């Protein structure tokens, strides 16, 4: 299947969870509650189809073909 990740087409195995996608992008393994297992704050948030998905639901959220996913973090800004 294909999703849109941060504005770009992104091929993905069926039934991939949001948790797996975040780990793949950030390189940080996640606990089922969505916190990074390295003990440091992850500092990212996810919107799926223009709705924020709380980190506690990432592992239970399977992505679907055509989903639009935005993964954001803090950058420099006034």
């Amino acid at each position, binding site marked *: 299947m294909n999703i849109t990740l*941060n*504005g770009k087409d992104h091929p993905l195995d069926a039934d991939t969870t949001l948790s797996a996608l975040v780990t793949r*992008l*950030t*390189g940080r393994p996640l606990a089922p509650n969505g916190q990074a297992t390295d003990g*440091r*704050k*992850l*500092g*990212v*948030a*996810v*919107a799926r189809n*223009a709705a*924020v998905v*709380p*980190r506690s639901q990432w592992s239970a959220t399977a992505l679907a073909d055509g989903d639009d996913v*935005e*993964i*954001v*973090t*803090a*950058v*420099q*800004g*006034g």
Partner: protein
Amino acid sequence: MSEQMTGQVTEPATTAALAPLVIDGVELGSRLIMGTGGAPSLDGLGAALVASGTELTTVAMRRYSPAETGSLFQLLEDQGIRVLPNTAGCFTARDAVLTAELAREALETDWVKLEVIADEHTLLPDAVELVEATEQLVNRGFKVFAYTNDDPVLALRLENLGAVAVMPLGSPIGTGLGILNPHNIELIVSRASVPVVLDAGIGTASDAALAMELGCDAVLLATAVTRAQDPVMMATAFRHAVQAGRLASLAGRIPRREHALASSAMEGRAEFL
């Protein structure tokens, strides 16, 4: 606050005058809020932040990119500086609310600097969308720091909607033109019962001192430091300027007069025949 941050101002009266700013029940030892925008490198930014003495700094929310993981988030965590995410780049209440929700999730804070701008040319706030977004965010439990025009009517309306701080602009973002309408800023201050933070347009230290002299509770700036030729020196200048302006504001300036007034007594002068 460390001794280095308080500088040489240690007399009891001035210590009282430099009491912390309290926003949403949180004490901030510095009345200078430094944004992180415009810095060419994270190292330079870190040094400028330390020199400024700030305890609160703004960040923007953007798409995660694996390429640039010299993490700003980590830098701020390491330095113990509280984060104030902004909604920079949002043109509608809808986008601003969604961005604030993402920031709350990513950074685990319900504080948000609400920016809803009208267009990229002026970067001025869109009052209608700003009011709408403030209402929605307050209803969702956010603590809204509302970036607003220097309009006393709008500022009061934002406060009445539940903003925890109002942040009028001195002049448009990034212009360095200073405070174009001091009278309006004074009017906003005189009617506000939440902290007033002068935000945007600061060019140099005297602009920040003026903001504090006008009665503002704090000053927020970014590019005035990050794009200065020597950001660390400029951050130090701003740290002193904000303290100086605050002290001057509380000390009570002399009234302005139409004519000169001698400070030396006229009586008892020697007469030369």
